[in-house]
């Protein structure tokens, strides 16, 4: 693919170089699926240090706030990329699991006085429990039908939330959810929440990284390429699909509980189809079939939407045009395409030297 797409060094690559260098920090490892065991590499250290140092260099509450939102979106996108990018199934109901997580957190902390950490884990568990319940029947569907079924689940969830005011507060929702606290330490500023959310995101990214390296992760890829082929080599397709659906839902539930504690409110308007589509967009834009792409996509889209806010009523059309252009020019995701270019550029000087040697 490298040689097909780009043949030689172009002048405009000089323009890209800064952005490409930045992207090289977040880009996925092309050798991912072929490596046997997990090795801690320099690149991981760079991610880690960037995440820790960034809010200190850019010490601004607005930046922290957007990055908190981006982190929550990234957790959602990470959960979906396992399902959409690796196992090749589509889900438009991710917002419902997000909502289940948020409401679990809200109800447990405000009504039952449960501390944040147990409520956080309970959110993940509740979301995966519901995913298991509905996943059993609907994962027998494929393609568009699966998309429609998950879409329907999202709508049913919204109706149930609106129509049960005793439990969820109905259309008004639940207010005054306490901030996340851990053994007396309260995450009350955006800076603290940034570290909380990105810490959790790092943990989940590590988990996913190990998961896709495992036997199960390779089974996801097999299911994505051909379900019949996968079952022919002895993979239990329905079990694999169900488990990846449950894991994705658990990620969404955890993200939802963090969202509820950051925003201190939970109401049904937040968990509509718009959010589900946004998350799918993040995964597609970031690049399917890798882990860092969707995280980059989540950060990019969150910043884009907030940056466009100043254009007032024109923000929506501009947003649409940008998305269309990105999909036209980067059909397999920003991450995937630029990664190819980057690998070419990195190897360019080496190849040039070799070529010169031959000519001599």
């Amino acid at each position, binding site marked *: 693919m490298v040689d097909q797409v780009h043949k030689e060094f172009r002048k405009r690559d000089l323009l890209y170089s800064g952005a490409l260098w930045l992207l090289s920090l977040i880009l996925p490892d092309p050798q991912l699926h072929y490596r046997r065991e997990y090795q801690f590499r320099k690149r991981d250290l760079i991610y880690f240090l960037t995440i820790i140092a960034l809010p200190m260099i850019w010490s601004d509450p607005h930046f922290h706030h957007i990055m908190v939102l981006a982190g929550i979106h990234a957790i959602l996108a990470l959960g979906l990329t396992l399902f959409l990018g690796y196992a090749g199934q589509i889900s438009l109901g991710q917002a419902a699991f997000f909502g289940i997580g948020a409401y679990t957190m809200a109800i447990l902390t405000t009504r039952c006085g449960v501390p944040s950490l147990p409520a956080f884990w309970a959110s993940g568990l509740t979301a995966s429990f519901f995913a298991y319940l509905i996943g059993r029947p609907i994962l027998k569907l494929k393609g568009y039908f699966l998309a429609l079924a998950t879409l329907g689940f999202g709508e049913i969830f919204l109706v149930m939330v609106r129509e049960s005011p005793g439990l969820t507060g109905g259309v*008004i929702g639940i207010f005054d959810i306490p901030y996340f606290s851990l053994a007396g330490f309260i995450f009350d500023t955006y800076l603290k929440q940034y570290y909380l959310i990105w810490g959790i995101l790092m943990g989940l990214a590590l988990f996913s990284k190990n998961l896709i390296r495992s036997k199960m992760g390779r089974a996801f890829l097999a299911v994505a390429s051909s379900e019949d082929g996968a079952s022919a080599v002895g993979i239990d397709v329905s079990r694999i699909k169900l488990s990846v659906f449950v894991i994705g839902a658990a990620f969404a539930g955890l993200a939802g509980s963090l969202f509820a504690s950051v925003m201190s409110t939970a109401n049904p308007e937040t968990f509509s189809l718009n959010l589900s589509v946004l998350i799918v967009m993040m995964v597609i834009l970031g690049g399917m079939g890798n882990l860092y792409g969707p995280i980059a996509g989540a950060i990019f889209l969150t910043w884009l939407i907030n940056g466009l*806010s100043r254009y007032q009523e024109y923000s929506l059309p501009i947003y649409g045009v940008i998305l269309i252009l990105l999909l036209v020019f980067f059909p397999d995701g920003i991450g995937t395409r630029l990664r190819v270019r980057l690998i070419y550029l990195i190897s360019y000087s080496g190849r040039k030297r070799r070529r010169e040697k031959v000519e001599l």
Partner: protein
Amino acid sequence: MKRKIFLMSFSILFLMTWISPVHAAKSPYKIGVNLELTGPWAEITKTLKNAMVMEVEKINAKGGINGRPLELLFEDNGFDVGRAAANMTKFTRDKDILLVVGPFEDNLQATTRAIAEREKIANIIICPSNPMVRDLKQQWAFNIAQSDIIVSQKLVDLSIARKYKKVLVFHGAWPLAQSLAENFKRFGEAKGIKVIISPETHKPTDIDMTPQLTKMKPVIQKEKVDAFYACTGGPPGPIITKNLRALGIKTPVLGTHAFGFGFIIALGGEAMEGVEFPAAKPVVFDQLDENDPVKPVNIDFDKRWTQRYGTPSDQIAGYGYDIIGLIEDALKRVKGKVTRSGLRDAFENTKGFKGTHGIYQFSPTEHDGLSKKDLVFVRIEGGKFKRIQFPGTE
């Protein structure tokens, strides 16, 4: 050599941006505006935005306030909690921004009000309704619209004047409509009116209410209700009335203050005849009493609005006038250097400001500016809003 010139010019440019007169004496008073300029409220917030822009231009043309102009900074929140909250932090970060207006929708207000309390910046909101939020007694949030409480009280007065004994409520599934219904039940039953809140609800996007109304028809006939309260706003209002008449139900219909828009009559047509509701004064400003202090304000505002935008003004545009007017009024009363807390204190002590909607009175215990006196009864007759009066209720 070339490089030297480049470096020189670059450093000069850099220094110029550094020295640029950010803190000069004539720097403007900045107001952040955080509105749903895209999404389901786009039309309404656009009207509000136009009105605010028009008023600010008028003030600046007259030389500003204390010799300093007023500047509005708009941010769109796209009907999303996260974005509304992020816009709010963006505004609080800029030390020159003295006050934030919006958002419009009450779901978003809860979060931004919490940020306003934490960051200590005044937040002006339009149409708050959330009982849970109201109980928090927030110090930095001010409401300039008619609250659900006074609208419900006024509607109870209307029902008493019309001698309705039994009212059936069909409310929308959003917080404002729900709390209007509950407050109507609370105040109505205190005055001896039997209020039945139907378990059926509707959404703002419903384009046909016949299924819900068919289920409610037996209740209307069995209970012999005197009036049907369409507790809603926007397009559902005329849709409910039309569907109700199509089902052959002749019960009088009561509406909320959100019925006072021209498009409501255009959508509902014949069916809207005879609908009565408590309305804000801008809806029928030409029919107000001659000695009403609000009347000249409205006539002047409507003249300027029609001249500039070519359409008649409405109550939402009136809110825009009132917001800017209240800010101007408060800024004039701040003594010494204008700070966020100084402006908040001045705003809290607003007494008797004449807006298009009525006379605003704020106090440390009362952050809802308008009172029941600032509402009038309106009946739709011949495709027009007509003010009706009952002795002893004004």
